[in-house]
Each structure stands twice: as C-alpha cells, then as structure tokens.
C-alpha cells in the first residue's frame, strides 16, 4: 500500500505541472492585468509597477521565475494585498476553510448515510418521504438562497445563532456548516438509498437472509459494505470541493476563508495568488482522490494495489 501511495503521489506531479502551465498561460491570454482597473493612475506609473513585478518580461521567463520559486516553496508576492505573500494568505485562509469544510463533510456523510439507509429499508414510508423532501430541497435550492434563509430564521427571528460573525464560539459555525452540508446530505442520501436498494436485491444478501442471522446483521454486515462503495467514491471529490472553501458560504457568513481569496484574485488578476490557490486546489483534489482509492481498496478485497 505504501508503494502504491508513493507511486500515485509521484504520478500526480505531471498532472499538477500541466494544471500550472494551462492556468498560467490562460490567465495571461485573458485581457486586462493587475493594474489596469485603476483609471486614476497614469500609464507611466502602471508601466513602472508592471516592471517591478516583471510583468513585461517574456511569458516563458515569467513562468520559469514563478516555477523556480515554487520549487523553493515560494509562491511569490500578492499583487493586490501588498503586505502579504501568497503563502501567508493561504496560511491565513486555509485553516478556516478546512475547519468549516471538514465539519460539513462529517455532518453530510453521517446524516446522508443514515437517511439513505433508513429510506431504503422503509421504502415509501414517512422517513423515506421526509428524506426525499430534504434531498429535493438540498439539490434544488442553491446555497446562496439557503444561507440567507437560515440567517433570517435562526439569526434574525429566533435569535438563536449569530447572523454572520466569526470567532472561536461554536455558534458561529452552525449555520455555515449546515448550509455547506445540505447539498451533500441530499446527494449522499439519494446515492446511499439507491445503492442500498440495489444491494438488498443481490444474491449474496439473499444468501445472508437464508442463513437466518437476523435482519440487522444482514443489513449491517452484508448489505452495507457493498452499498457504501458508490458513496465512498463520491465522497473523495466532494470532500475536495467542500474543504477547499466555498466562496458563497464564506461571503454570506463573513468567514475569512480561502475561497474568497480565490475569487478576488481572479477578478484582480492577482497572478501569483491565482497560481498559488490553483496549485493548492489541484493538490487537494489529487490527495482526496488518492485517499478515496485507498479507502476503496481497504473496503473491497477485489481491488488490488498492483
């Protein structure tokens, strides 16, 4: 397994490299630059600023300079947030995004799996219909609607939780985590339900029933193992997306996460910040997929690491 992990990690290097090259040159093809938005500055001054950041060097040279920095763990300065370099900005935003994302994933996995199993076992019963309704809301209503709705109900009317604040209290985390988790709860519960229904019809679950070991043991020991496989496969990429920061949730709830930096950096043409965050997201996605594959290997004896 360790050699597999090592091989996969090494194998991800070309992927990341390709990601960097494509992002770098595509951003440069897009019109505008970091200093083109500000009309009150004279063209001479813009030229001066661009020269200071080597933006007028040949592109391949700029790429090489940046890439050389990456090899030395230096992601470069931020062009807009002048007092910080990219590594510092990531260090500020990432832990917060990770925290919110991790709670949201934990919640959505637990609730989604339980709702899915309950729905599959009591098909067309009250639990199934309620789970279906939650899933429908979670999938259909975008989080920029759910977030403010939760703020109005729990923040403004019931006054149970802060509307948008970020400190060390758990109250601040409830609504953003819930908002971020809801679409995943919806998806995981639907996936779990259909997968469980399908698995309950397999021959090996019928064999387990014929053994007279009891319905609960049949479900938990025999059916669940096979039924959870599609959910595990979905969780990897979903985790990557969720923990790498949601711009919408971070904006709605004023959370100082990394998602905001990403969107602002694109709007500002803050090239080093774009590259740094892209590289980070790429690495997170690759790592999440690797963890998923290892988990699937541990769950399914037919998957081999060779």
């Amino acid at each position: 397994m360790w050699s597999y992990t090592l091989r996969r990690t090494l194998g991800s290097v070309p992927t990341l490299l390709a990601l960097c090259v494509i992002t770098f040159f595509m951003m440069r093809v897009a019109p505008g630059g970091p200093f083109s938005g500000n009309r009150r500055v004279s063209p001479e001054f813009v030229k001066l600023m661009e020269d200071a950041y080597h933006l007028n060097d040949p592109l391949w040279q700029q790429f090489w300079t940046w890439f050389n920095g990456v090899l030395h763990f230096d992601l470069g300065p931020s062009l807009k947030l002048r007092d910080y370099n990219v590594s510092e900005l990531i260090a500020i935003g990432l832990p917060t995004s990770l925290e919110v994302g991790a709670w949201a994933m934990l919640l959505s996995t637990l609730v989604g799996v339980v709702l899915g199993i309950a729905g599959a076992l009591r098909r067309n019963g009250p639990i199934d219909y309620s789970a279906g309704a939650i899933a429908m809301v979670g999938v259909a209503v975008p989080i920029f609607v759910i977030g403010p709705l939760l703020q109005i109900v729990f923040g403004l009317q019931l006054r149970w939780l802060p509307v948008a604040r970020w400190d060390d209290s758990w109250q601040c985390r409830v609504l953003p985590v819930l908002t971020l988790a809801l679409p995943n709860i919806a998806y995981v519960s639907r996936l779990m339900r259909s997968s469980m229904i399908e698995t309950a019809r397999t021959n090996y679950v019928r064999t387990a029933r014929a053994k007279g070991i009891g319905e609960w043991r049949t479900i938990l020991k025999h059916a669940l193992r096979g039924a959870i496989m599609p959910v595990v496969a979905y969780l990897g990429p979903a985790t990557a997306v969720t923990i790498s920061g949601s711009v919408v949730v971070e904006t709605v709830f004023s959370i100082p996460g990394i998602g905001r930096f990403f969107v602002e950096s694109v709007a500002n043409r803050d090239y080093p910040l774009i590259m740094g965050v892209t590289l980070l997201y790429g690495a997170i996605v690759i790592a999440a997929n690797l963890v998923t594959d290892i988990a699937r290997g541990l769950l399914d004896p037919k998957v081999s690491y060779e």
Partner: protein
Amino acid sequence: MSAEPAAAASPNRPVLSVQDMSIQFKLPQGWITAVDRVSFDLRQGEVVGIVGESGSGKSQILLSLMGLLAGNGRCSGSAVFEGQQLLNRPPKELDAIRGSTMSMIFQDPMTSLNPYMRVSDQLTEVLTAHQGKSKAEALEVAIEMLERVRIPEARRRIRLYPHEFSGGMRQRVMIAMALLCRPEVLFADEPTTALDVTVQAQILELMAELARDMRTAVAIVTHDLGVIARLCDRVIVLYGGRIMEQGSLDEIFYDPKHPYTKGLLASTPRLDEKVHGELRTIPGQPRAAMGDFPGCPFEPRCALRIDRCRAEMPALLGDDKGRAVACHVSGV
C-alpha cells in the same frame, strides 16, 4: 460415519409436508399465478427432484419455503416443518429455522457469496448465530466442514475471499455453509447449472454423499434430467405451476404416464441413440400467464388432448405409495 442419534421415528417420517401451496406475483396487469396448489412430502433422508422448464415455478417453491419470496409475491397454503408453519411466517421467527435445521444452496455460486467478506466470516456467522459458539470454536467447525466438501488446504483457504475461489470451489463453500448446522432439510436450486459439466458431477456426488451421511432430506430443483437420474429417489414433474406427475425415479424414467413427462424424456438426447436431423422437442411454447384458466396447462401442447382437458384441470390421482398423475387421458 454419521454422528446423528438414531432416528426415533420411522425412516420414512415426513419432515416437511407441503399442502396446497400456491404462489402469485403482482405484475402491472394484475396477480398472476406461478405455482398452483402444489402438495408434496419430503421424508427424512430422501432426495426429491423437482423438474420442470423455466418459468414452471419450481424455484419459487423453495424460495417461499425459505421466506425469501420477492416483494411482489405472495403465497398461500401450508408447509409444516418440525410442527411449525413456514409459509407467511415473519422473518424473525423463520431465522431460528433457516440456516440451522433448514438451509438452501443457490444457483449461482459466483454471486451468491458476499464478495466483501472472508469465507471464514461467512461460515462462522452461521454457527455463532444458531449455536452460540465462540468465534474460535466456530472456525474449527467451519474448517472441518470445508475439509468434508474436499477443499484442499482448508485451514489456509478459509481466510480467502470468494473471488479467490473457482466456481466449483465456491459451490463447495456454499454446500459447506448450508450443511454447517447439519440441517434436517436442504433445498438446492439448480446447484450445478452455473458450473462446468466436469465439475457438475463432482458437486452432485458430494451433495448426495453428505446428505446421506447426515440423513438430511434434500429437495433439488432442476431442469436437468441427468441431475435427477444421478441423485434422486423421487421425482416431481412440474408444468405451468402444477404437479403433472410424481413417483419414484424408476417409475418416472421407465414408466412415465403423463404426456408431458413422456415428451420431456423423449426430448433428452441419448448417447446410445443416433440422432437423425434435429433433436426432438415438445412442440409449442408454455403459456405466458399460468393458472388463470380452468383447464390443464399442458393442453395446448399435448398430443393426446380431449375436449375435457380445456375445461377442467385433472386432479392429481395416485396410489398411497406416492405415485400420482394428473391427466384425464392416461392415469396411473
């Protein structure tokens, strides 16, 4: 060899008695009858073959007895096993019986074992659930049983997963699993259909031998007359969800009375006869929906049919030794 106490009752004591069992399935067009008022006994130590073509309802009989009927199915009638009614019993109550005194071997060994569990866990859970054995005790019994179904290196192989076994070996594991608690009754649903011809014979011999040793009564469902001839003491011939004829192996094979049984036997290719042209078949197709008409289900394909056959299903009439035929034209 047998470690069983000598049976107190006579060797021909029926262990399972099925009376007027009917099975229906709900389809979009309504309820259709798959099995229609079937009655038979299974006596201690005997092997009964249930033959019939695809869709004749033979597998459904076994599944209903095990409480494994599909969600859209229902059954009526009675099936008494060890003084207990099996049909329409809640699964919780059946769990005390199934896997223990009554067990089943399924058709497809490739998909009937759990691919995510070690063979050891799949075997030992039967013993821990039914006999309250510890894991270690159960493992020893399971290894012993794997040796009895002639899996070489059982102690090592019990740790493997099903996909690491061949089809024949998996069916041996299934047999071992079914026999772990030394059941009174063993159901086998086409146990060799999915296997190589060369492996089929070994598996059948193994089943027959173990059932004999443990004095287990076996009901084996198949469409393969070769399997019947090799294994069974008694034969029940099913067509369109009804029993057409039943009798001892010799009676069915050498003195068939019912036109369907005769046709079935005549359609079996034989090595000692030269085949000229095409293989013999019974002309026509089975009816699509069964049991919803008054007559004999075989009537449309029967060479001997008379007017009465269309109007009235003949009763299954026979002697007290278990020989019976359901036909207006050629009775016992």
